[in-house]
């Protein structure tokens, strides 16, 4: 039973939140997961459509004033233990939009971030690397170190 339990939690489901990104990072996220060339599903990951099914949340974009409340609401829907990954320089520091009048980010002002993947956008392999780091954090939170 214990063995089964260990096995079953190795497949974190991913959820994406676009917090006002230019779509560059979202395209790379789609590439990472949806085409066989990069195929994040080899790691047991899978995109899910509902935040309530998610384990790892990937956030892109600098958190614009317009989407801030919605992003926080969706993020709150994700059950604990969740791991937050900031993808691209936008959520990490504001990136090229930093100090803009409509920018509320960087995202760690409002949401505790666990892993940063800077780049504009980061290449799919870098995102996979970030997902692996996030998976390690997630396993540690569950008390199941590899």
């Amino acid at each position, binding site marked *: 039973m214990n063995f089964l339990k260990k096995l079953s939690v190795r497949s974190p489901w991913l959820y994406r939140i676009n917090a006002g990104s230019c779509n560059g990072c979202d395209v790379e996220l789609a590439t990472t997961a949806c085409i066989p060339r990069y*195929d994040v599903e080899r790691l047991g990951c899978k995109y899910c459509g509902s935040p309530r099914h998610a384990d790892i949340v990937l956030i892109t974009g600098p958190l614009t004033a317009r989407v801030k409340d919605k992003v926080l609401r969706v993020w709150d829907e994700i059950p604990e233990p969740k791991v937050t990954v900031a993808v691209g320089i936008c959520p990490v520091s504001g990136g090229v939009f930093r100090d803009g009048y409509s920018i509320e980010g960087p995202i760690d002002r409002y949401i505790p*971030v666990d892993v940063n993947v800077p*780049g504009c956008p980061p290449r799919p392999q870098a995102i996979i*690397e970030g997902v692996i*780091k996030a998976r390690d954090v997630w396993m540690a939170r569950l008390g199941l170190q590899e």
Partner: protein
Amino acid sequence: MLGFLKILARNVAQGPSTDPFPFAETHTPRRFRGKVTMDPAKCVGCAICRHVCAGGAIRIEPREDRSGYDFTVWHNTCALCGLCRHYCPTGAITMTNDWHNAHLQERKYDWAEHHFVPYLRCTGCEAHIRMLPPDLATRVYANHAHDLDFPALLRMCPKCRQVAAATRAAALNAPADVDDAASAGSGNGNGSRPAAKAAAANEETTPATPHTVKDGGRTDADTPRATAG
């Protein structure tokens, strides 16, 4: 049917097209734009890179005691655009193809490259200057490499360098055109030759106006502009 078999055979022969990363190394193009890096030996502190930086990732801060300046590139703000590399007049700032950028939040604020770049004192007038990088000097004085005392010139501010070059040229009885390159950036290309000759004639002359370090880390703005323009 035959076509299908052909494709099947080719696919079996080629193997999967999935990138092996993270289970094996991936292919990274040689010129892939990854983390920015800076070579403090070549930097002259002109701050062109900071001026053009799309993300505002570069910070240049002169030290209070005028011993030099601190140079920082924040990888978490760098958009990997390559503008800094394109505009740097000395080739000090470049991009590696290192894309391993994912890091835990604890490391967020040290995910940067720091350098301290020291000033030295001009051997002529004691002003705080950034040493002229040898690579750049070879380009600036390309036509005069044979008749100049390079190691000494590198340690002078642009004004003293002009005077020294002219003095030396006059002493060698060569046509006094050695100051062409140096004066190109100083804005008074016409006036400098007679002035330099006068300086050469009067052995006692010392440079009158010492260059002082301007705010914002710009020390030796003349030199890079001379090559960039």
